[in-house]
């Protein structure tokens, strides 16, 4: 059986499963399919096991009683569930946010607004010459990015693949596994301050002297040789720059001398799906307040928690205890928390209500959006009735 892996935003569509064995997947994808029955969440209310309907009823009660509820997560579930979650947030007149507000949401929003030219990974495979990985180490975060879409494949216009038809650029604060690949037809730039490198690209494109002029000059000359170049930006870029407008200006400036596209690199399987779904609905990709009718930093889930602005949270398919700074996650103990998750996550262990759900892409199907905006339809390995769509619909009906 051929499956799409929901493990990361590559959404690899060639996972072959036969007699319980998983082929073509990275280590992470292999775990998703091979260990999907492990550490499953159990319906709980106040630490006591209950049936799923009782847990959903309690969740509805908490949300109804809450003065300032928030919905958070949703990046590992399908678009169909994300739409219902937005309905729930609207019905509650509350807040909704996902991981992208501290991840790559700002860059996705720039792409959706047409502020940076973008392309698809399939086009990259066939056409791209200069590949810039900036602040991302796909070797660990998007393990098949290089082999399936970018550096190694032999594309239509790039028949010699990485041997001669790609020029790899890696920008990082350390010599990562991806940086080590940057040997022949390549440049590795170790930065301390990303803004200085952005500034160098802008200045060299204008023919001026700059700190990284030697390396940047070579890269821009290589870009000029091709009709298709791409920059993949990760969290290192986001946190390396205080102002992402500088980066957007740099991409604009580079496009005056050579065609350069941008694709966000990182994040959960369907983070872009959430960004696009909310964007279609309210014109913003994340941190949205239905009460105020706008998006803002103060409505980011992390800010709401830190500043004690919410009294209840519905957390779907994400694990803030695992992933958010302690100064933020420690506030979860002060509010009512409802966790909808297939796994008994760290956050589920401290939640007031736990509602077990199906694993999207394994036990339930639906739509997800790849990091480049391509929509894919996932089919389940086996169908489980109680999935995120079912649970969120029940909550919506109950409110």
């Amino acid at each position, binding site marked *: 059986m051929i499956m799409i892996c929901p493990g990361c935003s590559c959404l690899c569509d060639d996972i072959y499963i036969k007699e319980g064995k998983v082929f073509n997947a990275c280590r992470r994808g292999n775990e998703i399919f091979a260990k999907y029955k492990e550490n499953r969440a159990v319906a709980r209310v106040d630490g006591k096991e209950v049936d799923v309907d009782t847990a959903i009823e309690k969740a509805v009660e908490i949300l109804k009683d809450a003065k300032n509820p928030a919905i958070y997560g949703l990046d590992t579930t399908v678009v169909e569930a994300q739409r219902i979650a937005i309905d729930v947030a609207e019905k509650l007149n509350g807040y909704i946010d996902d991981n992208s507000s501290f991840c790559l949401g700002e860059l996705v929003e720039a792409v959706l607004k047409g502020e940076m030219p973008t392309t698809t990974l399939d086009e990259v495979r066939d056409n791209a010459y200069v590949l810039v990985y900036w602040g991302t180490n796909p070797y660990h975060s998007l393990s098949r990015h290089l082999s399936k879409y970018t550096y190694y494949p032999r594309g239509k216009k790039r028949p010699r693949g990485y041997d001669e038809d790609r020029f790899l650029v890696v920008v990082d604060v350390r010599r990562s596994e991806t940086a080590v690949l940057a040997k022949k037809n390549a440049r590795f730039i170790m930065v301390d301050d990303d803004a200085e490198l952005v500034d160098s690209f802008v200045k060299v494109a204008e023919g001026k002297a700059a700190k990284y002029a030697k390396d940047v000059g070579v890269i821009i000359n290589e870009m000029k040789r091709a009709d298709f170049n791409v920059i993949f930006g990760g969290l290192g870029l986001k*946190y390396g720059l205080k102002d992402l407008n500088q980066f957007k200006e740099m991409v604009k400036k580079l496009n005056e001398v050579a065609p350069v596209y941008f694709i966000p690199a990182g994040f959960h399987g369907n983070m872009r799906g959430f960004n696009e779904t909310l964007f279609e609905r309210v014109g913003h990709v994340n941190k949205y307040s239905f009460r105020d009718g706008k998006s803002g930093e103060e409505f980011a889930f992390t800010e709401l928690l830190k500043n004690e602005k919410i009294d209840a949270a519905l957390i779907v398919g994400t694990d803030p205890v695992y992933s958010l700074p302690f100064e933020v996650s420690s506030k979860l103990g002060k509010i009512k928390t409802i966790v909808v998750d297939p796994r008994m996550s760290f956050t589920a262990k401290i939640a007031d209500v736990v509602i077990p759900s199906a694993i999207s892409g394994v036990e339930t199907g639906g739509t997800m959006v790849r990091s480049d905006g391509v929509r894919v339809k996932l089919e389940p390995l086996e169908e489980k009735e109680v999935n995120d769509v079912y649970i969120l619909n029940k909550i919506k009906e109950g409110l």
Partner: protein
Amino acid sequence: MMRFSKFLKVEADIVVARHALVMDETKSKAEPVIFLHPEFAKRSGVNDGDVVEVEANGRVVKLKVKLSDKAPESGGVIPNGIYASYLTSFDGFKRFKASIEVAEGEPTSAEEIIGQLKV
């Protein structure tokens, strides 16, 4: 034999990054590990397999040391997860400074951190 490095506290640059070999898709466990650059470890008197106390933002965890030349030369990498999240603040979400010293005992368990959340 008592090691001199036991009493040596050094400052380190920490990068927080995904690590495919440490990630657990079942969300059941977290590996208390820090990847130190071999040169940094040598300078600091830390050996592969040591347990070190890592302190940042007024919080401390004990992590097991693995050496990796993919770590920053002036410190190490802590994989994304509960240990990095415990130490970091939003200002230094992906990169922060910490102090490191060789410690006795076992690495910190995830349960010890979770125990501080719901009191």
